[in-house]
């Protein structure tokens, strides 16, 4: 599917939505998120903070899904890369006094370069190699951040200047929401382009892709680099939102959180993670605070859900959607499902 393709049967509204890679349903979801903090009863700071962090994980899950869903590589050091972007910006701000708004680009760039080098090293080999080596590189990065105390202050935590001169969470909420939409659009455009076609070919059958003249290493490294750049950008947000960075943030268990959201939402859908992130993470948070006499119960449920999804429904929520909402008979529903989505669904069905 070419990005520039304009079907004659599309009206202007559909065309704009298509460029934004949204379905009317997705647009409604975004509008709900956008007006959410303004509604009465929703203006509690802790709730907005939870949802902000949930959207942060959702955005991470999109960037993570770009590699896992399309080229079938699990980046197990994902959060270390996120942390690297954050640390770069925070160190520049704290030691050189650079504005965070410039640090954003440098953080993302550092993450991209790291991703590029790691990709060159590992993506020539089998997928499991990439998963394990990114895991170790993530651990090594965490170790460096722990032990290079003069630069990173180690476990004491590095202070990062806040982005906005306010104690409210609302500006950050809108910031991460916009970032999530931008990341989503970037990933969607990529996967719709010719490059995305190559990604899918590699993910499904590497030998066949190679036979048809695709250089798998190049495309894999490109994909990995883009995903890491987005991760670095997200890290920048996290550092300047929370205000303090500790090496714990780069631990594998944090990557597992992102991975669980991406998988439960649905692999290679890109929208599945964001769709389930807020209800899932907020209910986990409620369980955690509700059962404070049983510490860790929310993570047990987390793991059980991940196991059940892996065994019984590997496609996650997105696959359920494609299965049951595939070809709505009702015309309103068909409008909501969206133009290109509906076409795509029909193609998948046939």
């Amino acid at each position, binding site marked *: 599917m070419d990005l520039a393709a304009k079907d004659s049967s599309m009206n202007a509204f559909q065309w704009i939505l298509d460029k934004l890679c949204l379905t009317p349903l997705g647009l409604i979801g975004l509008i709900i998120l956008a007006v959410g903090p303004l509604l009465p009863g929703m203006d509690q700071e802790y709730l907005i903070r939870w949802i902000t962090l949930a959207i942060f994980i959702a955005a991470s899950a999109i960037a993570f899904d770009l590699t896992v869903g399309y080229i*079938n590589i*699990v980046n197990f050091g994902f959060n270390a890369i996120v942390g690297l972007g954050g640390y770069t910006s925070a160190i520049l701000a704290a030691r050189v006094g650079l504005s965070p708004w410039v640090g954003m680009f440098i953080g993302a760039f550092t993450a991209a370069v790291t991703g590029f080098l790691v990709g060159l*090293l*590992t993506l*020539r*080999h*089998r*997928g*499991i*190699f990439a*998963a*394990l*080596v990114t*895991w*170790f*590189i993530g*651990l*090594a990065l*965490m*170790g*460096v951040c*722990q*032990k290079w105390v003069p630069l990173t202050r180690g476990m004491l935590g590095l202070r990062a200047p806040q982005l906005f001169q306010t104690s409210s969470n609302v500006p950050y909420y809108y910031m991460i929401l916009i970032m999530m939409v931008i990341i989503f659009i970037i990933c969607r455009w990529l996967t719709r382009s010719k490059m995305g076609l190559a990604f899918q070919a590699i993910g499904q059958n*590497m*030998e066949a892709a190679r036979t048809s003249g695709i250089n798998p290493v190049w495309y894999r490294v490109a994909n990995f680099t883009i995903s890491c750049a987005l991760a670095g950008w997200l890290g920048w947000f996290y550092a300047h939102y929370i205000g303090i960075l500790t090496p714990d943030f780069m631990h594998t*268990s944090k990557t*597992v959180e992102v*991975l*669980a959201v991406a*998988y439960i939402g649905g692999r290679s859908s890109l929208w599945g993670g964001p769709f389930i992130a807020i209800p899932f993470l907020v209910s986990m948070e409620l369980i955690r605070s509700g059962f404070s006499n*049983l*510490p*860790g*119960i929310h*993570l*047990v449920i*987390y*793991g*059980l859900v*991940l*196991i059940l999804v*892996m*065994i*019984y429904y*590997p496609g996650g929520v997105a696959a359920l959607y494609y299965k049951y909402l595939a070809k709505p008979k009702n015309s309103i529903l068909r409008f909501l499902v969206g133009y290109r989505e509906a076409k795509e669904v029909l193609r998948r069905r046939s």
Partner: protein
Amino acid sequence: MLQAFWQKLVDWLKSAAGLTVLVTIVLTVVTTLDRGPYILVNTVVIGGMLALISVGLALIFGVLNIPMFAHGEYFMIGGLAAYAVFKPLEGLVKAGPGSLFALVAPLIAILAALVAGALAGAVTEVLAIRPLRKRARQNWVMNSFLLTVGVSVVLINAHQMILGVEFKGVDRFYSGVPLDFMGAFVSRDRVFAVILSFILIVAFWLFMGRTKTGRAIRAVSQDETGAMMVGIPLDSITMLTMAIGCALAAVAGGCLLFLYPTYPTAGMEPLYMAWFVVILVGLGNVIGALVGGFMVGLARVLTIEYIGTGWEYVVPTCLIILVLLIKPSGIFGTEVRGVLDQ
């Protein structure tokens, strides 16, 4: 005859495997002379335990093609079982040191760890991995990896939920004066751990090489369909493999209880180290994992000795990057069949 043997030895020493083994031995001797015999002692203790854990990991990867992420949790379960058995007996042991009971009690604890690890492994296989195997085999390596990630999260947090986060350890298994080894004092527990790990390694070797079941396991690792055709019951072999692999990790957890008390995430570090070993020597190479355990043990001891604690993840990662650049199939090469291409 002797000449032919000599020629073979020289050839082996020129290969990557021989060179690294030689370098490891030389490095051990040199650093031992430099810093004292406790380097050698620590390398042998850590290396023996690491060999046990990584042999299990390599076995499960080689036979079942599952990259276990939850292997450290069986280490933790072993520690927990040994703690649960030994803690009530500790008072009796302290009351009569030197009695037969004091000699046997730690062995009972380790046996409990072994049984608990084997049971936990078999249960995991039946409840989690077998349903996945029955449902879909495509993209198996990645899916089973993520499945074991889920198992790991559940086990760690179930431990935290039920037993809390505090350290659960014992002071010592065997009391008495430390043994004198070239001027360094080595506690009896360390000697016990080393002897036990060597006995288990030899027993495992004999089991895989000499018994019918061991041969069946190797047959499955070479060709699953072929093994099924000659009448090997696949389900029980997979269960047995998981049980053996997990039991070895659990024994290591039980043996090291005096050194590393158990707590929810106690398994993480052994897991990293065991994976370092398995990648360094080549995925799924069981014999290589035995030797590699001592190499990574040495790397760890030397890193802590010369650079400082906390860098022990950084140094093996650099080693792995080097190996990936020079010899991607690992130092000893890998013998796992090609289902892993993806």
